[in-house]
C-alpha cells in the first residue's frame, strides 16, 4: 500500500509540475506578463502536492494501525484488554494471523479479531489514499487558480524552501533533544520511579563500590543481590583511558611536532596518509587485534617474568585504544602548532635558540591551550569508545588500579545490559540509560571546555 501511495505521490507531483508550468506559460503567451517564470509556478504546485500528501501519510499511517488494533482488541475478553502483557501478545497474534504467517489452530476470537483488523486496515489505507489524492488535486487546483500577473510564485516557493532549510538545520537540534530526553527520562525513572524494584538511591549509585546488575529472574534465585555502585566502572574507564593517554599523549604530540617543525614535504606526504589510515580503522577491527593478538602477547610476557596477568587485561585494551587515539591527538596538535605565528619562532631564532629550544620554550607554550584541548577531546573519545573495550576488557566490575587485572567500563556495561532481550521496566535496563547519561554528560562537558579553549586561543593570533 505504501508503494501505491508513493507512486500516486510521484505521479501527481509530475502532473502538477507540468500542468502549472504549462498553464502559466500559456497565460504569459497570451500577453499577460507574469512575475515568476513558469518553472516556479510548477515548483509551487509541486510543493502544494508533496507537503499535504506527506503530512497526511505521516499522521495517517500510525493512526490507522492504532485504530485497527484497538478495534480488534475490543473483541477480546476484558481480562486480555486490561492486562498490557496479554493484550500485546494478542495483538501480535492478530497481526501475524491477518498477514497469513500464522499456521495452526486459531480460536474464534482471534479469527474475528483478525477479520476486524484487516477490514479496518484496508478501509483505512484506502481512505488515506483517497484523502491524499484529494489533497493533492486541491493543491493542483489552487496553484492553477493562483496564476495571474500579480501572483509572485517564486517568492512563495522560496518561502517554502526556506522552511525546509530551517527544518533540516533543526534536525541536529532535534537529535540532541532526543538524546537528552530519552536518556534523561529513563535515568530519572531509574532513580525515582517507585514502581521499579531494586532501584538504588542517587548516592548509592555515585559512590557504591559494587556493580552487579543481575536480577533474580525466578523465585529460587532469590539470593542474587543486585547492586548498582558506579565506582568500579568509573575506575575501570579511567584506568583504561589513562593507559591509552600514556601511550597516545607523548607519541601523538611528538609526531605532531616532528610533522609540523622538522618533516620535509616528502615525509609529510607519506606520514599524513599513514595517520589518516590509522584513524580510519574501525574500532571493531582494533578490538579484534586487542583481544586476539595484544592480550595474549601481554599475558605471555607477563608470565615469562612471573606476573599474574588476566587474559582480558586493562593494559591490552588501553594500549590498543592508545593506538586509536594517536592520529587524533597528532592531527589536532599539528593544526595547533601550525597556527602559531612564524614571527614567534623567528624571534626565538634571533635570540640564538636552536630549533628544539624554540619549540620547547616558545612554540609549545604558545600552543599549549590548543594541545590541552586536543588531549581533552582525545580523553572524551577514549571514555566513549565501546568496541575495543567490549572485545578486549572484561566484564568483571572490580575496584582496582592494577593494569594487569580485568576491569570493566561504562560502555561495556551499557552494551552488556542492552544487547539481547530487555524489558523496559526493570532497574537493570534503566541502569544502562543512567550510565549512558553519565557518559553523555561527561563527554559533553569535556567537549564544551575543549572547544571553548580552542576558540579563546584562536582569537589571540587572528
Amino acid at each position, binding site marked *: 500500500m505504501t508503494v501505491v501511495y508513493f507512486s500516486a505521490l510521484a505521479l501527481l507531483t509530475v502532473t502538477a509540475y507540468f500542468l502549472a508550468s504549462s498553464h502559466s506559460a500559456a497565460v504569459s503567451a497570451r500577453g499577460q506578463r507574469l512575475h515568476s517564470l513558469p518553472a516556479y509556478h510548477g515548483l509551487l504546485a509541486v510543493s502544494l502536492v508533496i507537503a499535504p500528501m506527506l503530512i497526511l501519510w505521516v499522521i495517517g499511517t500510525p493512526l490507522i494501525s492504532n485504530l485497527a488494533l484497538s478495534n480488534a482488541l475490543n473483541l477480546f475478553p476484558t481480562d486480555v484488554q486490561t492486562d498490557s502483557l496479554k493484550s500485546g501478545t494478542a495483538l501480535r497474534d492478530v497481526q501475524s494471523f491477518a498477514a497469513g504467517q500464522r499456521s495452526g489452530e486459531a480460536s474464534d476470537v482471534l479469527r474475528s479479531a483478525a477479520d476486524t483488523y484487516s477490514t479496518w486496515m484496508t478501509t483505512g489505507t484506502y481512505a488515506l489514499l483517497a484523502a491524499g489524492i484529494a489533497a493533492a488535486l486541491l493543491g493542483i487546483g489552487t496553484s492553477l487558480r493562483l496564476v495571474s500577473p500579480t501572483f509572485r510564485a517564486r517568492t512563495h516557493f522560496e518561502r517554502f524552501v526556506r522552511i525546509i532549510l530551517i527544518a533540516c538545520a533543526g534536525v541536529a537540534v532535534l537529535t540532541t533533544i532526543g*538524546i537528552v530526553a530519552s536518556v534523561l527520562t529513563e535515568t530519572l525513572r531509574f532513580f525515582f520511579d517507585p514502581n521499579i524494584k531494586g532501584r538504588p538511591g542517587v548516592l548509592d549509585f555515585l559512590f557504591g563500590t559494587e556493580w552487579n546488575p543481575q536480577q533474580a529472574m525466578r523465585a529460587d534465585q532469590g539470593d542474587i543481590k543486585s547492586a548498582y555502585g558506579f565506582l568500579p566502572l568509573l575506575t575501570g574507564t579511567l584506568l583504561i583511558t589513562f593507559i591509552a593517554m600514556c601511550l597516545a599523549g607523548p607519541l601523538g604530540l611528538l609526531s605532531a611536532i616532528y610533522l609540523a617543525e622538522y618533516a620535509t614535504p616528502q615525509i609529510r606526504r607519506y606520514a599524513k596518509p599513514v595517520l589518516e589510515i590509522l584513524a580510519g580503522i574501525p574500532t571493531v577491527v582494533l578490538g579484534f587485534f586487542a*583481544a586476539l593478538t595484544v592480550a595474549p602477547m601481554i599475558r605471555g610476557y607477563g608470565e615469562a617474568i612471573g606476573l599474574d596477568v588476566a587474559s582480558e587485561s586493562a593494559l591490552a585494551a588501553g594500549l590498543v585504544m592508545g593506538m586509536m587515539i594517536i592520529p587524533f591527538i597528532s592531527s589536532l596538535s599539528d593544526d595547533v602548532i601550525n597556527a602559531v605565528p612564524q614571527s614567534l619562532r623567528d624571534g626565538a631564532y634571533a635570540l640564538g635558540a636552536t630549533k628544539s629550544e624554540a619549540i620547547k620554550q616558545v612554540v609549545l607554550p604558545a600552543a599549549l591551550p590548543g594541545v590541552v584541548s586536543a588531549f581533552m577531546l582525545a580523553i572524551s573519545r577514549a571514555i566513549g569508545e*565501546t568496541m575495543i573495550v567490549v572485545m578486549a576488557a572484561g566484564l568483571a566490575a572490580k575496584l582496582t588500579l592494577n593494569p594487569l587485572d580485568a576491569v570493566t567500563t561504562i560502555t561495556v556495561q551499557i552494551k552488556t545490559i542492552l544487547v539481547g532481550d530487555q524489558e523496559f521496566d526493570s532497574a537493570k535496563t534503566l541502569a544502562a540509560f543512567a550510565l549512558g547519561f553519565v557518559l553523555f554528560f561527561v563527554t559533553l562537558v569535556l567537549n564544551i571546555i575543549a572547544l571553548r579553549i580552542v576558540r579563546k586561543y584562536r582569537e589571540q593570533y587572528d
Partner: protein
Amino acid sequence: MTDTLASPNSAPQRRQLKADAAAALLKRRYASERLFKVLGLGALLLTASFLVILLTNIVTKSIPAFSEHVVNLDVVIDPKVVDPEGKRDSATLLAADYASLTRAAIMSAIPGIEGRNPRRALTSLLSSGAADDLRERVVADPSIIGTTIKMPLLFSDDVDLYLKGSSSVTSQENGSSDLTASDVKGDITLTGAEGTFAKLVAQLESENAEVSPETGARLLTPLLPSRLIEINGGLVKLASVTPTTATGTTLIPLTSSGVAKAGSWQLDTYAQPESRRKSSDQDIAFIETLRDKGAIERNFNWRFFTSGDSREAELAGIRGALVGTAWTLLVTLIICLPIGVLAAIYLEEFAPKNKLTDIIEVNINNLAAVPSIVFGLLGLSVFLNFFGLPRSAPLVGGLVLALLVLPTIIIASRAAIKAVPPSIREAAIGLGASHQQAVFHHVLPLAMPGIMTGTIIGMAHALGETAPLLMIGMIAFIVDVPDTMTDAATVLPVQIFLWSDLPEAAFQQRTAAAIVVLLGFLFLMNGAAIWLRNKFERRW
C-alpha cells in the same frame, strides 16, 4: 656563567676557557637538538609500525579463510533415495536425504572400513554443506538422478584446518628390517627382528612413556606423540611397543598380512599429541589416504562471498552482512545527504546571526563528539520503543547512522560552501538572481565536489560503526540474506564482532577475512574521496 669562569688568569687564557665552556655548552645543546628530532621521528615511525603490525597481523590471519578444501568423489545418485516414486517434483527432490548419498560416496572412496566409530569418523570428515551442494545440483538438473557424477564435496572445518597445515608436524622413517603383520584389520601385532623398534623404545623412554606391568612394553597414550606404521597398504596406530614387537589398531585395513621387507614399511610420527589436536589419528589416516589418491583439491573460497552466516565455520559467509550493510548505508545516505546539505546551506547562507543560530552551531559541533553508543541508546528508546519500528532492521540502523554522521556531513558541506568565493554569489545577484537562485544555481554546483568528499568520508565512518547497531538489535544470528530494509539483518562490522567471539580457529580466520573485506571497502571509499578532492578541487 661568567661568574663561574672568573679566575685570576690572564685575559687570553680566560677567553680560551670561556670559549671551551661555550663550545661544550653548544655541543650539549646540539646533542639535545638531535635527540629531540630523533624522538619525534621515532614517535612517527612507532605509530607507522603499529599500523603495519596491525595490517600484517590481520592479513596473515585471513589468508587461510580465502581457500577451502574439497574432495572429488564419485557420487551415486540413487533414485531410491532421492525420488523413490519417480515424481521428479521439487518438493520431493528438496526433501530427500542427500547426506546419505555423500556418506556413501566417501565410504566407497576408502573401502573396507568396519566398526561404528571409524565409519562415523570417515563420514564426519564431510561438511553438512556437501549434501546441500548435491541437493542444489540435483534440483537444478533432475536428469542426473540414477547416474554417477563426480563432484567436489566440501570438507568440515577441522579437516580444512588440518589440510591448511595448522596442526601436527609429521616425520617419516623407513623400517630397517623385515616386519610381519599378524592380521589385516582390527587389533594386530607386528613382529620384527631383534632391535627393530629399539630406537622407538628409546624415544618413548625419554618421553617418560608408561611401562606395562605385565609385558614390560612401553604404552603410547594420547598425551604422547602418535606413532603409526604404514605397512602393506594399510596403516596401524601403535598402542604398545617392545624392541621386537608392536601392537596396535589398524586405521586403514592392510591389503595382506605377512612379511613386509625392510624399507617397504614406514614409521610415521605425528609430533603433536592426539589429545591436543582437533583431528584424531583416524581422521588424519583417512585424509592422507584421500590425499594420496589425488582426490583432494584446494579452491578459492567463493562460498565466503555468496553465502550467509552459519554455525558451521566452513559454510559461513558474509553475503548477508554485505547486503545488510548495503541496505543500511542506502538508508543513511538517503536521509543524511539531503538533510546535511540543506542544513549546511541554511547555516552558511541564510541563517541570521543570532542566538538561535549560535545554539545550532555549538550543538552540531558537540553532536560530532557524542560517543556513538549514545546514538544507539537514542535509537533504542526513540525509534524502537517510541515509534515501534522493527528491531534488527537496516531501516533503523540506517536512521541511527544517519544521525551519527549528520554533523560530519554538515561540517564538511559548510566548509565546501564557504570555500566558494563571494564574487560568484555577488555576480549572480547582480544579474538579477534571487539569493536562493544564486545559491542553488551557482554556489551549490561549485561546492559539490567538496560536499561529495565529505559525504564519502562520512559514509566510510558509518560503514565501520558497530556499537550503536548492537543497541538496536542488529546482532542477531541471521542466516537469510535480507530482501528489504525492514527484514532482520546484520552488517559487516557486527558480523566481525559476532565471529570474533566464537572459539573455533576457522571462525577466527573468517573474522580476519571479513575484516580484510571491510578494510578493502574503506580504502576504496577513502581513495574515491581523495581522487574527487584532487580532481575537482579548485583554488580561487
